[in-house]
């Protein structure tokens, strides 16, 4: 691996009374595609700017392979940045933009020409090489920025919401390209984004941030399937979240089977979890909308631990490949449960579900999950 290991230790940064970063520590492995994910104002960009050298922490250290880099100015760090606004030099052509870092280092002419063409080819802009940035589309501009940031052969590439200014389709394509480039160059990528689907699809690991703190670090699977806090559960994907109290906890097939009291669902719900929980502890019960089954008649299943509720369709939302239903449960609380239903094949589907229909929603114990940290 050509990249470096990036260690951020106990970094804090305040702007006046606003704490942009509050005691943040994270270790990013060599050659990893690591994402910092969070809503705007969560401190992810501040952290990136500190690693790049445009901002300085009040306390804490940042190390590349164990060497403190904080005393170094941006031009002396082994990192290069791809900016959200591209920051291409408008007076220079694509060729000269990409050649800029090499010209600064006074690279010999033939070598410079060879490298510039190589990197322009890497981002597939060969035919636009002599154009000025103003003649390029957004996606092309961002590719120039990527080539320009990579040509110095940095050990870390910092990407500050590089795709946020592009339209959805282009964003997907460029994201895949970024992943391919990451595999090719093999250096550490630190990717800042507020878009969870971007982060989930390409990252090796993700750090979810909010209000200057890192809430959870893990693989996309861990973050989605086992959110550490209520915020993570709500921010990543969609969730039905209800506060609950643990009633019982027994070992069950290598995991634990718990009975929890969920007042919003009008009673006891069974759910499995990897760890035992103390009886009486207050936690959050969550089930993803795509794991809830919706049927017009009670489902014919023999599953022992099925959680089954009757309700009325409050609001159907059609979105092509799937529909989202807001189901108002037929209990005292009248709580709402969100359900995704895939439109797969005609054969699978029973009668079409519509507004004000009475329906049954159900999920098994293994579909639910308990979020332990409820206050953040």
């Amino acid at each position, binding site marked *: 691996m050509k990249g470096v290991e990036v260690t951020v230790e106990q970094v804090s940064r305040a702007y006046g009374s606003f704490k942009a970063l509050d005691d943040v520590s994270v270790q990013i492995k060599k050659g990893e595609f690591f994402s910092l994910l969070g809503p705007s104002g969560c401190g992810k960009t501040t952290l990136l700017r500190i690693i790049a*050298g445009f901002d300085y922490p009040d306390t804490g250290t940042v190390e590349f392979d164990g060497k403190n880099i904080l005393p170094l100015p941006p*031009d002396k760090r082994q990192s290069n940045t791809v*900016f959200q606004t591209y920051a291409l*030099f408008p007076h220079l052509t694509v060729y000269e933009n990409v050649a800029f870092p090499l010209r*600064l280092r006074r690279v010999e002419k033939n070598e410079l020409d060879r490298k510039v063409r190589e990197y322009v080819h890497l981002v597939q802009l060969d035919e636009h090489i002599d154009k000025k940035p*103003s*003649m390029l*589309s957004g996606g092309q501009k961002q590719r120039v920025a990527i080539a320009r940031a990579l040509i110095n052969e940095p050990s870390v590439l910092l990407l500050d919401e590089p795709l946020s200014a592009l339209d959805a389709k282009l964003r997907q394509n460029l994201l895949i390209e970024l992943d391919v480039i990451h595999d090719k160059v093999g250096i550490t990528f630190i990717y800042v984004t507020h878009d969870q689907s971007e982060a989930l699809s390409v990252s090796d690991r993700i750090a979810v941030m909010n209000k200057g703190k890192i809430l959870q670090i893990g693989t996309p699977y861990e973050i989605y399937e086992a959110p550490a806090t209520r915020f993570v559960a709500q921010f990543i994907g969609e969730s039905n979240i209800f506060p609950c109290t643990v009633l019982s906890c027994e070992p069950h097939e290598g995991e634990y089977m718990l009975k929890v009291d969920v007042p919003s669902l009008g009673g006891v719900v069974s759910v499995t979890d990897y760890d035992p929980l103390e009886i009486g502890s207050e936690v959050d019960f969550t089930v993803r909308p795509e794991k809830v089954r919706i049927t017009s008649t009670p489902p014919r299943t023999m599953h022992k631990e099925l959680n089954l509720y009757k309700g009325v369709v409050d609001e159907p939302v059609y979105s092509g490949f799937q529909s989202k239903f807001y189901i108002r449960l037929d209990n005292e609380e009248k709580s709402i449960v969100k359900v995704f239903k895939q439109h797969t094949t005609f054969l699978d589907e029973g009668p079409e579900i519509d507004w004000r229909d009475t329906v049954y929603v159900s999920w098994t114990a293994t579909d639910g999950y308990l979020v332990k940290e409820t206050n953040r």
Partner: protein
Amino acid sequence: MKKVLKPREREQLLGTVYAFPMGIWFTLFFTIPLGIIVLYSFLKRGLYGGVEWQFTFDAYAQMFNPSFAKVVVRTLWISIVSTLGCILIAIPCGYAMAKSKYQTFLLFLIIIPFWTNSLIRIYAWISILSTEGFVNTILIKLGILTEGVQLIYNNGAVVLVLIYMYLPFAILPLFTTIDKFDFALLDAARDLGATKLESIVKVMFPNIKSGLSTAFIFTFIPIFGAYTVPLLVGGKDSTMIGNIIVDQVSKTRNWPLASAFSMVLTFISLVGVFWMLYTGKREQQQSKKTTQQSLEQNVRKHHLPRGGK
């Protein structure tokens, strides 16, 4: 049948009507006087001022005189040094103003000196620089000097006061272009390995070129024609072209020669203005061409069938 004007035609007609008063004003008080100067420069000198109606190149011939040549050379170097001085001071000023939170207040500070008559401001400099002036008094009080030094009535004082007088004309255009400059580009340059100075010279300067050329024109042209400053704070050897013209009109009463020198000033200024218009237009054309091309690109990409050219 009554002719009905299309909206665009009517707008064009209205534009002409609106421009009419300004047109008359400029014709009466600018173009005609300039014409008179051109005319006078080709006429014979009248004995007690004025001209005799006789066509001649005498005035232009008289200009090729070693003592005048010296003045022209001096005017050139004083103007160039003062202009460069103005721009060198104005760049960091404009930068600081663009970055500052108190832009409006700073702009206000720049404009304040214009509320005072320029003559009064020059006299203020005389009292600052003279032998018993402000600077000398302080230096003597501090014990650095024992007696006053002659700071005034030399070319240095002329350059200093010229820079002071025309600095705002350099700051204002530079401030407006630097204000529009994207400072993220400096971050990008630093990130890519440029030192602070390299990032400013290689990235900022090329992108504020229009401000630099405007500042140059706005300061160089008035400085080139200056005559009060060299007259009041300059010495024996500080005469500039502007002073020659005043002398020829009021003392020597050689109006054709004065007109000829005015023609030189006007000509050099015109060269400057045309240069600015030319570079400005070229930039505009370039950007127009690029938008045109990217438009074509888009149309080709989205509206033409795939495969076919």
